[in-house]
């Protein structure tokens, strides 16, 4: 089976695929080499991520990872979310990926962390 069942499940039935009312941050990014797009909005309270919503379009890996990532990060401390790395994403996706597909998987992490950093910069 090419794609893990969990991955396909997140692609077909994404979690947190929604908009946030009055988000504390909203960032969106595009990978021009393949057209994958991810936008993430979030709400923070007491240095924790209280809610996340994502939207976007693109390949299975980019969209499913966004779903998994938002599910993983809601309720976590902002600092913890900022330490998530490439290896955490690889573990989440559960697939060996070459450099091209890895870029797809890392897009939502990039967007989330940029969003969280932009908040820190404002302070």
């Amino acid at each position: 089976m090419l794609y893990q069942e969990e991955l396909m499940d997140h692609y077909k039935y994404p979690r947190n695929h929604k908009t946030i009312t009055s988000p504390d941050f909203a960032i969106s990014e595009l990978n021009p080499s393949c057209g994958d797009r991810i936008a993430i909005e979030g709400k923070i309270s007491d240095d924790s991520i209280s809610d996340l919503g994502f939207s976007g379009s693109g390949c299975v890996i980019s969209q499913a990872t966004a779903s998994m990532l938002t599910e993983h990060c809601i309720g976590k401390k902002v600092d913890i979310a900022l330490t998530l790395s490439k290896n955490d994403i690889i573990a989440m996706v559960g697939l060996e990926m070459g450099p091209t597909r890895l870029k797809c998987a890392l897009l939502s992490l990039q967007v989330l962390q940029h969003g969280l950093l932009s908040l820190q910069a404002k302070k």
Partner: protein
Amino acid sequence: MDIAKKRQDFPIFSGRKLIYLDTSATAQKPATVIDALARFYTYNNANTHRGLYELGESSTTHYELTREKVAQFINAKYPNEIIFTKGTTEGINFIASSWVEQHLTHGDEIVLTQAEHHANLLPWQRVAQKTGAKLVFIPIDLETYKTQNPEKYITSRTKLLAVTYSSNVLGDIWDERKQELENLITLAHAVGARVLIDAAQAVMHRRIDIQKLNPDFLVFSGHKMMGPMGIGVLYIKQALHDAVQPYQVGGSMVFSVSFEQATWAASPQKFEAGTQPVAEVFGLGAAIDYINENIDFDQLRQHEARLCSMLIDGLEKLEHDIKIKIHIAGNKNWLREHGHLVSFAITGVHPHDIASYLGAKNIAVRAGHHCAQPLVNLLSIDSLLRVSFGVYNTPEEVEIFLQELTSAVKLLCHSFGSQEYNPVRGE
């Protein structure tokens, strides 16, 4: 043409399941090419143009014989018009910095097409930025996928026409029957412009005839015509050899050197600084031998067009059977008769996902923008899947590809909520 027999010439296919549909990215190599590299290092390894011992002399002789072989292969008038480079990209950068930059000023125009590969676009963007020259693009008709009124874009301000012979995304963009490209080159010369042809994609599928085409510069890469990677050819018309500066300076390309200055050797040595990839040159020679001995370009065209036709029929049937929309980026009628590749996008499915699925089944195809982002954007598509054929591909492989493509689409095609991924914008 006995394809099954030809496949045996290519070691990569033996003992493994591989359906290789990415020849436009790089061609697979016959054993004779692979052997040429090993044989050079085993029996002939010596630097060229320097040694006074037998090994050095023989290495030089074979290197120069290959130069003659390349000249004959593309019907260039003189062997010294053939310069060895690392590849197409280096060849274009070479001419951009060693001739074009010195001869263009503010307001001059460089004419390209909208279908250029980044290798034949970015060097000219840089030249335009440095000199104040302007880039002008011959449009691609989005119904015929051929150039639209190309002669309109050649004016008295045109100093360079730099165009692809054949697009790595769309296939043929010139009307061959009307000799459109030859006529455009004649027109460019008539206004005093020089002409560079990017033949990277064409060299494997069309007989290149320099004397018929009459460009000033022409580039291609060895690895796309079954030679090794790391070797390419830059053709420079002899009349321009004095006007073109060396691209790199250093060893081999000098006549005399003092501490303060140097004078150049005669061409082609003037244009080949440092130790050359001699083994790769031998490999390129072996690739030309293989083509000369085993491939008839007319038969190859028929073979590849037949595979394109099967593929297009299959895509149309798929559209009908599982009710999806497939956009073929290319002139279907032309591709059925003359094509060697088919690029397409499927509504609701990302090409990367299809390519990954097929890759896991040992079917090699290419997905993305194919180093032609402006062209793909022009088509209002994010990303295209490309199937490209070579002499070793078979009708059976096309059938298997279509079966697996069907499975991939069934697995991946879906909609969630109100969002359905669509690589084709505006639908």
